[in-house]
Every structure is written in C-alpha cells, then in structure tokens.
C-alpha cells in the first residue's frame, strides 16, 4: 500500500522548531557550560605538560587533545569528550517523544498534515545539529586556545586528522542520541527513559570494559602453555576485543587512538609478524590511520542508523493515545 504525499513534508519545520528549543533551553546551556569548562581545563593541563616537555614531536598539535598533565590526575580532552558527549546526547534525546506525550501535544501535532516520519527524523536531526554546533564551537575554541598558548601553527595533516576526529565525535554523539530517542519512544515516562539510557551508558562505558575480559576468559579459558610463559592466549584476547567493541565507547576510543596518535599501528592484539620490518615509533600516513579506524567509524554510524530505525518502527506502530 503506497502512502499519499511525501514523508518529508514538515521535516524542515519540525527541525527548526526543535533546534530553537534545544538552543534556548536551560538544559542545553548547563551542558554547554559543563563541556566548555572541563574541556578548557583539560586543554590547559595538556598545554602545561607540552610546554614542560617540548620534544621534536612532528604532531605536537594533536597532543593537545590527548595529553594529560602528569602532576594532576586530570583526564585529557578526548577522555572528557568520551564521557561528556554521551551525557549531552542523552540530555538532548531522553524526552524527545515521551515529552510530547506527557505535554499532550503529540496527537495535536500529528493531526496536522505531516507523517510521523517527519516528526521523528526532524527531532533526531535537530538533536544532532545541536550536538554538532556545540562540538564545532568547542573544537575551534581548543584550536584557538592551542594556537594562542603554544604559539605553533598546526600542520595540514594535523588539521585534517583533528577534523576527522571532530566528525567521528559527532557520529559518536549520534549513537547515544539515537539510543536516548529509542528509549524516549519505548518508555512513556521521561524519568524512566533517562534512567535507563544513563544506566546503559554507564554499563557500556564503565562496567563493560571490565566485564569483557572476564566473559572472554570464561568462554575461552586461557591456554596453560601461554600462561606459563606469562603471555595472554591469542583466542581469548581476540574474543575479548570483539566483546569490548560492542560498546560505542570502545569504538570511539580506538578511532581516537588511531587518528590522534599517528604512531598507532594496530587496534587490538598485535602479532609478531605484523611488527616485522616496522620502524617502531614512526608515524603512519593519515590515509593508513584512517583505513585502520574505518571499521570502527562505520560501526559508529551503523549503530546510529540501526538504533534510529528500531525507534522509527516502534514509533510507527505506537498508539497516539496514552
């Protein structure tokens, strides 16, 4: 059965309304403030560290994102992002649909000549655009801060790498936004949706990385021959990597590692054969780094799409009435 009219009708209207709601909401202001302050603190720490130990690093500027100050246990800029971007995305998405239910605006809006597609997709795009706007602003801020305090202009490849890093961070936010929206469709109470999403986020980010090795060791017990040599069993390690990569946080961390540290040669276990002939510590060309992280990047985008589609299907079948 073919529906009459375009599913995109009204998409732009919903997008602009939601975007303006996000950008003017108090919630967004608080999140932005949190992100900017912590990020600047981290970058400042990194700059102090870089100044103290100026080396002949060809990718000094990228160090801005990844270095931590040794004296203070302050996380680096990327670790802050890995932690705060999900929080921001969840903050933007957890009441996307159930909020319309509880405000009793959903049936009134859907009685206008638009399809549900436009409403859901418009909300998602608005959330993503809000994330993108804040992240681009943050990225520019960090680069400017670095230029000012380090006094070294970044090279072309450094800029390219950090730009890809920015795009990946947006995609990483997209996964959590899609997840938050999915739960906002499933759960009628915004508080429940927020708690479930936050719970799942904590589980995937904190607990899962500890749980993955344990599960791997149970499924494939370590071989005593390797153990006696003090080496990990390759099969166990492989399974552990596979399990850990189910979490978007792991994927993001791996992409960041490949992109911002050009000397990274492999993600996951390295075999001796891979190291033959390698000049340890020599940077890879950007295309190679990108190639290495490509599966992870695709994984993040695919995760976003899959979560959004599940939400879309549930939303289409849902009754308008509470």
């Amino acid at each position, binding site marked *: 059965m073919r529906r009459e009219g375009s599913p995109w009708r009204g998409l732009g*209207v919903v997008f602009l309304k939601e975007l303006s709601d996000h950008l003017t909401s108090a919630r967004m202001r608080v999140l932005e403030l949190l992100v900017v302050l912590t990020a600047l603190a981290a970058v400042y720490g990194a700059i102090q560290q870089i100044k103290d130990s100026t080396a002949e690093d060809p990718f000094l500027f990228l160090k801005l994102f990844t270095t931590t100050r040794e004296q203070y246990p302050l996380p680096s800029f990327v670790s802050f992002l890995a932690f705060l971007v999900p929080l921001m995305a969840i903050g933007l998405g957890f009441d996307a649909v159930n909020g319309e239910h509880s405000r009793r605006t959903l049936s009134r809006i859907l009685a*206008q000549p638009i399809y549900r597609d436009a409403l859901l997709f418009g909300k998602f795009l608005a959330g993503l655009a809000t994330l993108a706007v804040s992240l681009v602003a943050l990225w520019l801020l960090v680069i400017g801060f670095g230029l000012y305090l380090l006094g070294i202009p970044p090279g072309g490849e450094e800029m390219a790498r950090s730009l890809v890093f920015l795009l990946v961070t947006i995609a990483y936010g997209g996964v959590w936004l899609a997840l938050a929206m999915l739960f906002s469709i499933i759960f009628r109470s915004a508080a429940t949706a927020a708690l479930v999403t936050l719970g799942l986020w904590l589980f995937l980010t904190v607990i899962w990385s500890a749980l993955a090795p344990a599960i791997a060791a149970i499924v494939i017990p370590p071989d005593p021959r390797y153990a006696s040599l003090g080496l990990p069993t390759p099969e166990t390690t492989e399974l552990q990597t596979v399990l850990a990569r189910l979490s978007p946080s792991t994927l993001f961390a791996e992409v960041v590692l490949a992109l911002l540290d050009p000397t990274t040669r492999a993600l996951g276990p390295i075999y001796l054969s891979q190291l033959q002939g390698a000049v340890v510590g020599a940077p890879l060309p950007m295309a190679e780094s990108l190639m290495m992280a490509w599966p992870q990047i695709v994984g993040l985008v695919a995760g976003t799409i899959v979560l959004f589609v599940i939400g879309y299907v549930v939303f289409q079948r849902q009754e308008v*009435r509470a």
Partner: protein
Amino acid sequence: MSTPVIEARDLVKRYGGATAVDGVSFTIAPGEIFGLLGPNGAGKTTTILMLLGLTDISSGEARVLGHDPAREPLAVKRRVGYLPDLVGFYDHLTASDNLRYTARLIGIAAEEREQRIATALDRVHLGDVAERRVATFSRGMRQRLGLAEILMKDAAIAILDEPTSGLDPQATVELLAMIRGLKHDGVAVLISSHLLERVQSVCDRVALFHDGKITLLGTVEELGRQVLGGGFAVEVEAQGVALGDRLREVPGVRAVEATGPDRYRLLAERDVRPEAAAAVVGAGGRLTRLSVEEPSLEVIYTRYFENQGIRDAA
C-alpha cells in the same frame, strides 16, 4: 440531504483480543453538529482517531470529505481540525508562537500566516494574551487556543474530543457558543463527550455509544420518542376526586401514573397541558402544578439501559 462530509461504515477496531469499536456506522452532513456521546471507554476517541488516520482501522470503511483516512491521511488532515481530549501546547512558547508552528506544519503561506493567527486568536478572545506563554493559561484558555488552531486552519470539519471536560460552567458556556459559531461558518462539527446534558444543547444529532457500539442515533427528540415511548411526560399536581380516570380520558394521553398523593404523570403523544388543565378544572379539582418534561439525553440514556436490562433478563 447533500453529500455527507464524514461517512463511517461498520468501523471496527480491535486491540489484541479486545474490541474497542465494534461496527460503528454514521454519516455527518456539512454544517451539522454531531455528538458522539457515551461513558468513558465506550470507543468514542478510538472512532475519532480512526477517522483522522491516526490509528489503523481493523475493518470497515471511513470516508472523510471523500478521502480514505487510512490511505490518504494528509488529504484528510489538511481539511480537518482536531481538538484532542485535554489538549496540550508547548508551555515555553507564546500562544501565537504555538499557532505559528502549526501554521507552518499545515503549510499556510507566510504572507497570510500572521493575519490568520491574529484573526483566529481574536475570535476566541485570546487576542490580548497572544504574546503570553501558554504556561500561564488556564484549562479554558487552552481549549480556546485549540479552537483557534482549528479556525486558523480554515477546516471544513472540526473534531472536538471532550471539549468541555474540566471546564467551569462559565467557560463551558463560552466554549459551546464558539462551537455554535463554527457551525455558523458552515463547518461540520463532531463532538465527543460523556457529559450528556451540556452537549445536548448544541448537537443537531447524537449517537449514543455503549461498549463500542452505537446504541441510539438521531435527534434528541427522535430518541426521546423511540425510547421513552411517547414524546412528552406531563406532570400534574391537583386535588380532586378520581382525577386519574378523568386524565386518562384526555385525548392523546396514553398512560397515567400516580406518582404520589395528588400527583400524576401523563405519558402523551404531544404536549397535552391545556387539555389536562381543562380536565382537572372540569372535574372540579384544584390544579396546583402543571409542567412538561423535556426529553433529556440523560433520561433517554438511563431509560434505554433500564429497558435493555429488562429485555436481557427476560
């Protein structure tokens, strides 16, 4: 009668095993106010959602302005205004911003948008508070804002779900007057309500819902004749000898009930007050009260189910 704007034929809605709407058929003519009345949970809202294409139709057929709401929902929703039960607005936006958002969704051209919003708000007496946030609005103001949305949409049909619920008597009277105004503009109005008395006054025809079925359909007078047996019940209070027999002889009276000492209730085909008065006076009785009971929906509804109960028991 001109072509109906809404036609429902044997509409059925099933949720899993339960049947919420069970074979409902009715038509609504242009410019008519049609009431869907019945207790909560009788299937009124579900019927409305099916007509708007907001929920699937399990079986049966609906036509709204000649369109099938299941296949052409946009064509239907372009011409139909809907005021949901306990309508909600975006509290952080002003009244006119709320309407502006819907106006864009409807696709009203930018150059006439402001004019239409202002006119609609003035008509529901919200012109003064157009720039106030909806958060400060009372229940009645929100309902009126919902009505303004329908006016702005220039809809051919207005569907109002429980428009008077939660309103104080004065707000109800105001709202009902505005609904009559819609009819005056030639808009067909479908009202659902569980408050029979309030809505009775504005409806041209009503359908009484019970358990997902329409049990009665027609004008209030028709239903009265159908259910109460006669159209009129005349109450007589008079002192005198054997008045009951005298009243029974009045032409047009079908039955006389003695409801108390010197009190009689006449069931008649028409208003027999003059004849009854003459009969009492002619018999030398003292007439103290004479009144006619208008058939009210409440009475019709209750009586219908009493009769139904008797029939079921038999």
